[in-house]
């Protein structure tokens, strides 16, 4: 999933986490599609630079297409109060500018956020996320529970696959079933999943106790937890510089965007261009 050797690994996990925040959260405060498109471009460039296999990105294309279809479809079919909207005709159909434009703005925002997340999860193993959390002084118990959840996600997927096969052996033929039938038989999945999860939870808690784990994460003799793994990830100067820079950029973007309205979509050059194209200016 993550590349074996990537320049990203030269940076501390916290830095990579800050990058995630910057790329994925900034779009929330930015309406101007050009900026968001720029962020998408930046993410793509970084993906390339990080030696991520582009095939993996292709997995997300159906998702992107579906979301686009949905958003633009809704804008087309349910534009709202037509009296106050500017209409234009294209290919024999009537479109309304404002809903379509807003769909476009939202779509750019969504995709920007998505690509930020894609970049993060393609270049960080679970362990990296954990080290990042711990470096940020998040309590050990919290980050450990997060790790267990991640670990459980993997187990969950395996269990799900096994259960599906097991229920197939009981006559559950998913291919030849309607959605309604499949829904009715959900207990064939959920009950075994719960049973397996409950038993495992029991066993894991016993295993934790057996290894001397206490809820606080504090070791036996008192004092702080050694956190050996964290020592393996030295914080370099460039990490500090980059994290500070990105964090600052984020703050600036939020201020400019929300407080000062610099990134408003009305100021977008594309907005003007679009209006001109459809002859409304």
């Amino acid at each position, binding site marked *: 999933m993550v590349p074996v050797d990537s320049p990203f690994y030269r940076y501390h996990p916290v830095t990579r986490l800050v990058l995630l925040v910057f790329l994925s959260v900034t779009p929330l405060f930015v309406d101007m599609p050009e900026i968001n498109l720029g962020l998408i471009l930046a993410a793509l460039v970084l993906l390339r630079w990080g030696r991520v296999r582009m095939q993996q990105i292709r997995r997300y294309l159906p998702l992107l297409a579906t979301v686009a279809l949905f958003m633009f479809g809704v804008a087309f079919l349910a534009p709202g109060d037509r009296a106050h909207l500017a209409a234009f005709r294209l290919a024999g159909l009537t479109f309304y500018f404002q809903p379509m434009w807003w769909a476009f703005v939202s779509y750019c925002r969504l995709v920007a956020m998505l690509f930020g997340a894609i970049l993060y999860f393609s270049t960080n193993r679970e362990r990296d996320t954990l080290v990042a959390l711990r470096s940020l002084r998040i309590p050990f118990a919290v980050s450990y529970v997060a790790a267990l959840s991640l670990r459980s996600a993997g187990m969950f997927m395996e*269990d799900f696959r*096994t*259960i599906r*096969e*097991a*229920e*197939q*052996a*009981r*006559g*559950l*033929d998913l*291919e*030849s079933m309607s959605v309604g039938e499949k829904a009715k038989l959900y*207990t*064939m*999945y*959920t*009950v*075994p999943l719960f*049973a*397996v999860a409950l*038993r495992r939870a029991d066993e894991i808690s016993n295993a934790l106790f057996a290894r001397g784990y206490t809820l606080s994460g504090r070791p036996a003799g008192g004092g702080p937890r050694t956190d050996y793994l964290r020592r393996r990830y030295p914080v370099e100067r460039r990490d500090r510089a980059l994290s500070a820079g990105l964090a600052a950029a984020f703050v600036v973007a939020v201020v400019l965007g929300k407080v000062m309205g610099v990134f408003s979509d009305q100021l977008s050059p594309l907005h003007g261009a679009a209006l001109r194209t459809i002859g409304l200016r």
Partner: protein
Amino acid sequence: MTLVRVEDATFSYPDGTRALDGVTLEITRGEFVALIGQNGSGKTTLSKCLAGLLRPTRGRVVVDGIDTASKGVMKDLVRRIGYVFQNPDHQLFNARVYDEIGYGPKNLGVPEAERDAIIREVAAVTGLHPDLFGEHPFFLSKGLRQRVAIAATLAVRPQVIVVDEPTTGQDYRQSIDVMDFLVRLRVERGHTIVIVTHEMPIVAAYAERVVALRGGRILMDGAAREVFSRPDVLAETFVKPPQATRLAHAWARNGVRGDALTVDELVDAMRAALAARDGPPAGRLEAGAAHPPQEAGDV
């Protein structure tokens, strides 16, 4: 009569690993087959392909004339070949044992009265007392849950029953119970049994045919006695014959029949070898010495 035919089946996972590589075999009615081999040899994958749970990526598996890769045949396959998973938790999902056993027949549209008869019969056969009918399977012991899973599979009366690791986690008595039960199914009701296991004493004692796999291919396929007489080949898939067989092999050079599969057979072979060597065994001597044989004519 061939029930299951595997024709040059290959199974590859999406990430490229080849679990099965060109396997061909036939299973005939009434056989008791054991699939053995190390982890990753393909034995579990093969067992799932037999039951139609996995479709081979190349080649095909035909169960009673039905190609397992065809669409919508699951219900027909389930009627012919049942599969019991190693962990019963993966298969059980009803709130009562009674409903669990009855699920299969219900799914196939069997009317209630008939279903009740089937459930009771199958429960009796698997040693599940009617007192357990109202229990929630989750709270039963592992051994009982395993039996409920087997009963649920049996309720559909499949001709072929595949069991993945029937004795793992069971103790001695429970293992014998399960295996004797499978044998009874075969002998009394004509079922065909396929087990996947790595407990060799069980295989040696119960299976008549053994298929050993390695790297997705069949390493050996033959009568248990034959297969266990080749420990060097078995070692390729990290399988050791049971201790009794190993001893027999070692003693063969001293005149003991080298193909014993069980303790009983080995004891008999040993006694025979000792008798052949020494004349009448010491045991008989005890009785004979005190009472010399009557001569003809004495009364």
